[in-house]
């Protein structure tokens, strides 16, 4: 770890230093600083900011402070009652110790587990633009089959963000005096030719809240995560489904997939394939096919395409049973 300047901010205004990295739970930042992957000169601790509350939003939705810990959010009564997909996603992630530290804002921006990104002895277009991508012909079992480019196929690791994608969460961010709202789907950038640029936030811009819109009455939601072992592993494939069914017909569907793409993957193709259709296995299968259409496998991760389809079919089956 390199030497760095450390300050603590007590107000949001004081925290907004464009030359600093924000330290919340530290579960990604500190980890990567130890590996020399992140080498900030200044770190500002934002844990004292008043952003750790979950409140009712005016539209009937939920307003979640950026510093709400994953473990607290997972068991919040409103989340459990109205946004089960989010609670399930949170509880499927990491370990209890990590969830006790990790925050809502930090989780959205957590960095990939790509082996080559995490080792500075390798080239990496995310770390050093233009240096190359050793994952392309390396061991790429955990890498993305959707959203990748020839420059980067690193998987976005978050479970929480996948659930929030299906909940159409909105991110509230502050920079200087400006506060803006960003639809979660628009927060993330595909790697394209600039995999080092992972989101639209500017230097010194801080996520302050995430809001979840109120769901239509009768909506049910579920998160299903598939992986090698039962706990403490990133998803090989996961599915977040938020659906309302009436008279055996799917009125509304919001679908997101995790573990298979370079960002939390909202699948409007799957949604379109489901809405207005009957809740049948055949239609679920068609939605899964639509979701994974155009997936590009690498040497070791072809199985993820089929696995993601099965995750989605099962999640839909459970929700509409």
């Amino acid at each position, binding site marked *: *770890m*390199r*030497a760095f300047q450390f300050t603590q901010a007590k107000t949001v205004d004081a925290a907004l230093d464009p030359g600093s990295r924000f330290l919340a739970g530290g579960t990604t930042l500190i980890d990567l600083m130890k590996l*020399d992957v992140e080498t900030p000169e200044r770190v500002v601790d934002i844990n004292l900011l008043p952003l750790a509350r979950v409140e009712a939003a005016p539209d009937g939705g939920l307003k979640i402070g950026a510093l709400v810990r994953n473990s607290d959010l997972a068991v919040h009564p409103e989340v459990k009652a109205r946004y089960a997909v989010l609670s399930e996603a949170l509880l499927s992630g990491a370990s209890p110790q990590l969830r006790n530290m990790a925050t809502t804002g930090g989780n959205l921006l957590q960095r990939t*587990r790509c*082996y*080559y990104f995490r*080792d500075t*002895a390798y080239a990496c277009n995310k770390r050093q633009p233009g240096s190359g991508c*050793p994952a392309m012909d*390396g*061991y790429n079992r955990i890498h993305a089959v959707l959203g990748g480019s020839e420059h980067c196929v690193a998987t976005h690791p978050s479970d929480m963000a996948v659930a929030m994608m299906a909940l159409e969460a909105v991110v509230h961010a502050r920079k200087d005096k400006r506060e803006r709202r960003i639809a979660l789907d628009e927060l993330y950038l595909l790697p394209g030719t600039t995999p080092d640029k992972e989101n639209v936030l500017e230097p010194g811009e801080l996520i302050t809240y995430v809001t979840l819109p109120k769901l239509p009455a009768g909506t049910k939601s579920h998160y*299903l995560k*598939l992986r*090698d*072992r*039962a*706990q*403490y*592993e990133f998803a*090989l494939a996961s599915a977040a489904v938020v659906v309302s069914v009436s008279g055996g017909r799917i009125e509304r569907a919001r679908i997101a997939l995790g573990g298979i793409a370079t960002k939390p993957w909202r699948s409007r193709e799957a949604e379109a394939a489901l809405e207005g259709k009957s809740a049948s296995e055949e239609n679920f299968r068609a939605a899964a096919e639509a979701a994974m259409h155009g997936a590009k496998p690498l040497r070791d991760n*072809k*199985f993820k395409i*089929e*696995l993601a389809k*099965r*995750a989605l*079919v*099962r999640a839909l*089956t459970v929700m509409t049973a």
Partner: protein
Amino acid sequence: MATSVVGKEVTRVDGRLKVTGRAAYAVDHPIENLAYGVPVASAIGSGKITGIDASVAEKMPGVLAVMHHGNTEPIFRTAEPFERDSHPGENRPPFEDDVVYYYGQFVALVVANTLQQAQEAARHVKVSYDAKKPLISLDDPGAETKPTRRHYTRGDADAAFASAPVKVDATYVIPTETHNAMEMHGSIAVWKDGKFTLYETTQGVMNHQGVISQMLGVPVENVHVVSPFCGGGFGSKLFPWPQSPLAALAARTLGRPVQVTVPRSLMFTTTGHRPETEQHVRLGATQDGKLLAIAHEAKNQTSPMNDYVEGCTEPTPFLYSCPNVTAVQSLVTLNIGTPTSMRGPGTTPGMFALDSAMDELAVKLNIDPLELRLRNYAEKDESSNRPFSSKHLRECYQTGAEKFGWSKRNPKVGSMRDGNEILGWGMATCTWGAYRGGAQARVRLSADGRARVSCATQDIGTGTYTVMAEIVSDKTGIPLDRVDAVLGDSSLPPGPTSGGSSATATIVSAVAQASMSVMDDLFKLAVHTEKSPFNGADSASLVMSSGRVHKKGESPESGVPFEQLLKLRRIAALEQEAKTGGAPGREKYSMHSFGAQFIEVGWDPGIARLRVRRTLTVMDAGRIINKKAGGNQILGAVVMGIGMAMLEETVYDPRNGKPVNNNYADYLVATNADVPEQEVIFLEYPDLAIGEYGARGIGEIGLTGVASAIAMATYHATGVRVRELPIRVEKLLESRV
């Protein structure tokens, strides 16, 4: 008379220290003026060092030295094979020359006042290389394959296989596995007045002492190894790895205590591993399932510095009855660090192949896999022609089958179900050699009413402290809370390495004999002491129980507490030592433990998810000294077996030989959530050929059947025969169940 603690469920005497964090592991020892060494590891898989530029690092704050092959005193090779206790993890001492044999090899050591200073400076040591493409794969055409002397044959297996009416011919692959002990390898070396004190985490304090004495070129009595606790070894701490001689060398060079801890990432390269194996098994059998031929060929990776043989064919000659057997091993030298024993070495990977082939044979013959094993039951060891010292494998199979409900198994693939899940049932044979070596132990009875037992062995988490105390308590009747066990110190009477599941069998005899011997002294004292109630009596008429000396045939209450006799003579303590040798029956018998494992998996085809649902292990491992610690050994081994079967694999980047998943997040071991209901049954037939207590080792045998039982259960559930571990989702997607 109080009943003995031997054979009971006894809680570990060191348990409280461990769970309250007060047990001081190697690098926990508070040492004044300690400096920290951080290794610089090679970033290439093969080649030569062309230069080491330490000019920046040397000027950084707190840096004391940057040591490498160009600027240090030599570290010597050990005198193996001519002298005992001289086995290092890797034959080549660190910094011997400028050659890089594998990724992660230590090429320099930065020593600084603090760990952080040393880490930071280590990043600024610039090493330049002349790199070659490393050999990483067992089937790399450039890799050299060497025969070994492990070659067993009886009858003519090739001919018998060729003419056998039913055949299985299959190849099984197990990837590299890394031990991943919780406590990282680490060493603190103190050099004072020409002597080393080494705080270590080791499975063998005596071997460690010998190796460091030889590598650093100092007389053996000038090396004192202290290792009171070991946070898991699983074989990776049997022998010293480079961090130990480097810590010693740095301490001597700088005249200051030095600690070197191996970071988790380098535990994947530089502290041993279970090497990748490829096993070709051919079985020939009659239509009614009698084996005619077993041909077992195994090859494994080794490093350019050591010829490490993973003895996969170890059990093949004796496990099943068969007239024609060949077992051959070969080595493939690759640019990967030196392999070493990992829990159940040889037999564990060997049994995955052999018993998987047996299941394939059972499927071909349409015979129940348990029945097939009974039809080929070895009544004697057909390789040595000796009787087994104590074999109750048939009872293991039967007890296990009954308890598991094996008779309800429908052999048809995918035919058994529980709700959404398809069930798969598998079983396997377990085996491990019964070993006992030589040991010395000392027992002391003190006037304060306490006993102390000491031996230069170590407790690697298996319960050795407790077992030593239990034996003293068994012999003297002194309650466990008044018996202190001392170990993990090379200045104590030489004891065994904790390896090969031999420590308990080795130590119990020495401790028992030392206990008897010190009691003899006590009885003599009792009959030659004025005011002693036994003054003038025949010492042979005395016994000790419940911690009291009394007449044979009378109650302990009739006698006196032993400490009273010592006080009468104003003696602080009596102490005796005993030295015992190998198993008395070793010339006459073939000595092995056996067992059977039954495992149920659940297969959810909709999401291609396979999980273990329950396991049952029945062990015939002689008498169990401590059922709690013993049961834990089997449970732990089964957990490790679930990891081996379904999760574990060290993945090397073919371009540079780096293990890409070199951390706890990416190298998957079983978590608590992966471990289902487990049951362990011990048959407990004492094996008197091994010693008075009849206890055989149990540290490793619990792992030997798990992978093949899971592979069998997986086939039963999914119809997919996985011959290459780990059994992961991509291999199961083809299932049509």
